[in-house]
């Protein structure tokens, strides 16, 4: 399977700095995205530390299988998934200790979503309100749950989707990296088909574009980088109120090979 990905990040049209960070490491089939919080440069620092720590922890573990796992070992998931959760624990500690040392008590935090592909299995971790979607056929599903106050209200039936969409409290997260010495992580495993498309994005994208708009872009663009660019452009056209980041991952490139082109020509 030839993995293909495209990634793009943009400050947007309102903010002055880009507090989103991402790391795409195709040789490890690892993709990480983080949205930082906290004024001045704190948000940028937090998201950078988060993404770097996740990648480095996984890289170290790949080289040294006996690297201790951080956090409680999880049952019913693969070693790779356990490692990815461990990497998020490492990221939380790193952001938390940096906040204690440098930010002089200033609040500093970050969201994180990360996926790691292994054959047909995808490990997925999430803290905060960045999202992971999967497009299968023409059906787009959000694989993560937002750890935001409004999303919790919706889940518990206290608020409708519409109310949540217009709420002033959309920015209130109930979980983030760096706030406490430990963090609760959503960990899951997903089946990945060769024809699936995975999208990681920050809330700057999902505030501006509906799921239907995102779905249309992913369906329209065979090239993953073009899809990522298009998502960012559309979000900016819609207002670009926040930093916007999108990573589009396809386990099997849709771009046609020479033989594929000939085959298509014959079929047409």
């Amino acid at each position, binding site marked *: 399977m030839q993995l293909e990905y495209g990634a793009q990040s943009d400050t947007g049209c309102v903010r002055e700095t880009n507090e989103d960070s991402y790391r795409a490491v195709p040789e490890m089939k690892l993709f990480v995205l983080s949205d930082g919080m906290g004024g001045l440069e704190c948000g940028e620092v937090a998201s950078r530390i988060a993404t770097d720590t996740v990648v480095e922890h996984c890289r170290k573990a790949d080289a040294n299988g006996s690297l201790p796992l951080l956090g409680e070992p999880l*049952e*019913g*998931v693969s070693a790779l*998934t356990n490692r990815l959760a461990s990497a998020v624990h490492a990221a939380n500690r790193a952001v938390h200790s940096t906040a204690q040392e440098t930010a002089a008590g200033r609040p500093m935090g970050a969201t994180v979503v990360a996926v790691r592909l292994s*054959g*047909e*299995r995808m490990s997925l971790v999430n803290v905060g309100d960045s999202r992971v979607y999967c497009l*299968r*056929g023409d*059906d787009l*599903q959000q694989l993560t749950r937002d750890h935001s106050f409004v999303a919790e209200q919706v889940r518990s039936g206290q608020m409708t989707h519409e109310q949540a969409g217009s709420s002033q409290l959309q920015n209130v997260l109930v979980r983030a990296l760096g706030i406490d010495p430990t963090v609760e992580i*959503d*960990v*899951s*495993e*997903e*089946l990945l*088909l060769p024809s699936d498309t995975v999208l990681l994005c920050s809330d700057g994208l999902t505030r501006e574009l509906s799921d239907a708009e995102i779905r249309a872009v992913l369906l329209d663009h065979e090239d993953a980088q073009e899809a990522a660019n298009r998502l960012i452009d559309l979000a900016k056209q819609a207002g670009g109120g926040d930093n916007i980041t999108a990573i589009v991952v396809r386990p099997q490139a849709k771009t046609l090979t020479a033989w594929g082109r000939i085959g298509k020509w014959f079929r047409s």
Partner: protein
Amino acid sequence: MPKLVLKFGNSVLREVTVGQNEVSIGRSPENAIVIDNPAVSHIHARVFNEEGRLMLEDFGSLNGTFVNGQRVKMVTLKAGDSVGIGKHTIVVSESRDLDDPFSGNGKPAVAAPKLNETVMLDTKERRKFLEKVRATGESAQVAPARLKVPTLVVRRGRTDQAEYTLNDKLTVIGRSAMATVKLKGWFAPKAAAQINRRDDQSYYIGAADRVPSVNGQPIAQPTKLAPGDIIDVAGVHLEFMYRD
């Protein structure tokens, strides 16, 4: 008043007094004495009082009910009899429980066992728990919450097992090497559908190469499974349930 003592090996698991209500024995949770073992039928047998006699009736169970080693259909029980059901033994004794306010004082007997009352598993953990309970002098009737094991039972179609325990966060149904529920046959899809366990311990079925139906309805999006739901995908029917 006669008493039934449920034993596994040398451990006493439960004691039930037979009053006016009959005492049903079986694997289903509705029974007054629940024996969680695959060798025991859902409703296996019953013990009841009839004109002053204590009767035992086997409900045509697959693996049989034995009294003092003899397979029986319906017999009169007496104190000291040993009833064998699966690997468990139920010993009949005369209750000499002085705490029982109704024993021998002529008042009508009360129904001792309530429905859904207690469950005992013959697992190692459960036995350990029971030993601990007895060591602290508490009643062994205080059973911990029953262990529920999410399970897929194959009702139709070709798979490599008759049923599957959903241990993992991700369960794939298909021909693929990573599939837990392995479909057989040349034309079975590699990955027909997937079941995800979410953090609230609920299970969701989602489409992969096929769109599964739940209770006859094709699903439009990942759908939460309830006990008794029948999943129909790629020619197999799977029932979702919680085993005790």
